[in-house]
């Protein structure tokens, strides 16, 4: 067992017992924390691994949420049946929208991905095809029904989100140990060298966007079910900026880093709710300080994820 596995298992254990100590409000915060962690991980695939400056992730998250909401409320699909489209549609949209801009460098990509988010939001607000519910969004989304049971309680939501996070961690681990994950890192660290090693930049960046969007879509679907409502403001650019910041404050491409980032950027503001107006000021200061003191994030990524049999010689 390597360190990452131990950390993941420890974390899963803590989160597994958390609901038995928390009241329903904190359970809601906990559930949202799990959902946001999944989104943060999916953002991290694109930003932390493939190194694409992507600041429009809330669009893919929202697309998953709206897919579930629309299929369920307008077309009467059961929630379970909406899961596949809630993953596939964001994937396809991510591929279509990023394919023409994937070659853009750094900040140019950043601003165009903000654009994707803004266009998505405008589609929602303008109620395109009359199915998005406009600025109101969509209310009254069903709960998951399985074998005749209705999973409507908060603790059910929590454990569904928990399972989703587990699946996400498994995917992240597989990705990091595959040629796909490594190719993303190579591109991130030096794209010219990566190309010369036969790595197709375009393919792997799009691959990152597709996987990232798919996971974000799954999280979005969960989010829609948890709140039984979706509305545009939950998926605006500020939300994208939050996911972007979570990854960088926590530590990009670092599993514990991203979890910490989500905790710091989402759960702490909930805990400090009492401070009301001043909290975002403190928050901004903390962002600056974190970057100055730990430019690679609170818990930076460590490389050297190689099989044990190669680790001979000096430690």
């Amino acid at each position: 067992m390597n360190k990452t596995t131990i950390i993941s298992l420890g974390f899963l254990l803590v989160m597994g017992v958390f609901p038995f100590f928390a009241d329903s409000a904190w359970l809601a915060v906990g559930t949202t924390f799990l959902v946001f962690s999944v989104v943060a991980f999916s953002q991290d695939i694109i930003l932390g691994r493939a190194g694409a400056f992507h600041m429009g992730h809330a669009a893919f998250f929202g697309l998953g949420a709206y897919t579930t909401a629309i299929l369920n409320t307008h077309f009467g699909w059961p929630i379970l049946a909406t899961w596949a489209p809630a993953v596939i549609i964001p994937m396809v949209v991510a591929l279509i929208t990023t394919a023409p801009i994937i070659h853009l460098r750094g900040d140019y990509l950043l601003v165009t991905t903000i654009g994707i988010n803004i266009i998505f939001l405008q589609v929602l607000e303008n109620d395109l095809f009359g199915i998005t519910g406009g600025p109101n969004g969509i209310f009254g989304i069903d709960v998951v029904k399985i074998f005749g049971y209705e999973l409507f309680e908060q603790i059910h939501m929590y454990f569904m989100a928990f399972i989703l996070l587990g699946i996400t961690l498994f995917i992240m681990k597989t990705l990091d140990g595959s040629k796909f994950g490594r190719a993303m890192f190579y591109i991130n660290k030096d794209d010219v060298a990566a190309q010369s090693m036969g790595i197709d930049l375009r393919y792997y960046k799009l691959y990152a966007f597709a996987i990232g969007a798919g996971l974000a879509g799954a999280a979005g679907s969960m989010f829609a079910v948890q709140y039984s409502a979706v509305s545009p403001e939950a998926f605006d650019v500020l939300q994208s900026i939050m996911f972007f910041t979570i990854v960088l404050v926590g530590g990009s491409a670092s599993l514990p880093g991203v979890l910490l980032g989500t905790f710091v950027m989402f759960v702490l503001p909930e805990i400090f709710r009492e401070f009301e107006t001043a909290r975002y000021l403190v928050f901004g200061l903390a962002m600056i300080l974190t970057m100055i003191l730990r430019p690679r994030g609170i818990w930076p990524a460590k490389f050297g994820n190689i099989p044990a049999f190669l680790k001979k010689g000096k430690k």
Partner: protein
Amino acid sequence: MDIFLQQIVNGLTIGSLYALVALGYTMVYGVMKLINFAHGDLVALSAFAGLTIYTSIFADGGTSIIAVITVFMFTAAIIAVVGVLLERLAYRPLRTAPRLSAVVSALGAGLVIQNSIMLIWGPNMKIFPSDLFPSTIYDINGVVITFTQLMILIFSSVLMIALYLFINKTKIGTAIRAVAIDQDAAKLMGINVNKIIMIIFIIGSALGAVAGLFIGIYYRGITFDMGWMYGLNAFVAAIIGGIGNIPGAMFGGLMLGLFNALISGYISSAWAETFTFMLLIVVLIFRPTGILGEKVAEKV
């Protein structure tokens, strides 16, 4: 036809404001390769600071040219100082850090400025008095232009021309261009890079302050979170023009203002932002470094 010309006037007015703000983004980007996400919030701050200066100094003295000029000078000076502080505290420690760390720091700084405004001036909309400028309206064959609009157009053109000359004809301007091309080489040539960066922040922030004041005077209502919207539009304008390129920012700002006005006027205001970003994407597909941006070949 007069409706079309009216849209042009509308577009140019907002476009010159975008251009002034865009210059701040582009100058910082040119030298530091950093998107100064806090710049939009500086613009908002300038509007609030300007309003406070005006009401505290000229509480009931009515308006005069001197009053208006004083407000502009004071505000520009204050915002320039804030801009320099911003660079010292939030950006300089990160100059050698990964680029994205500086971006997060900039986002954090924006949050700090925005929420400071809210804590100092409150969450409510503040309103500029309507008599800072005469409320004269000129009607030229059905095309209407107000005195304030005229001032915005004239002043921003003068400032932009002055900046252009400053960058291209003076010694400091040459130094700025040198630092933008290669910081290390400039350092070797004896240029004080820190000083140049300070000058950049002074000029950029002061231009932003002028824009912020004009926004306050023209639209009157100012809110603590308005910086984000102006910032984003101006930033898009800077990229369309070719970020790092000063005439590019001016061109981009005016172009975006016009484009927005025509889209809103003739197609749909509900989809204006969608069209803005479509324009951006189309421009970047054909000119990956913006319309006036230079093509940068990477050394392999």
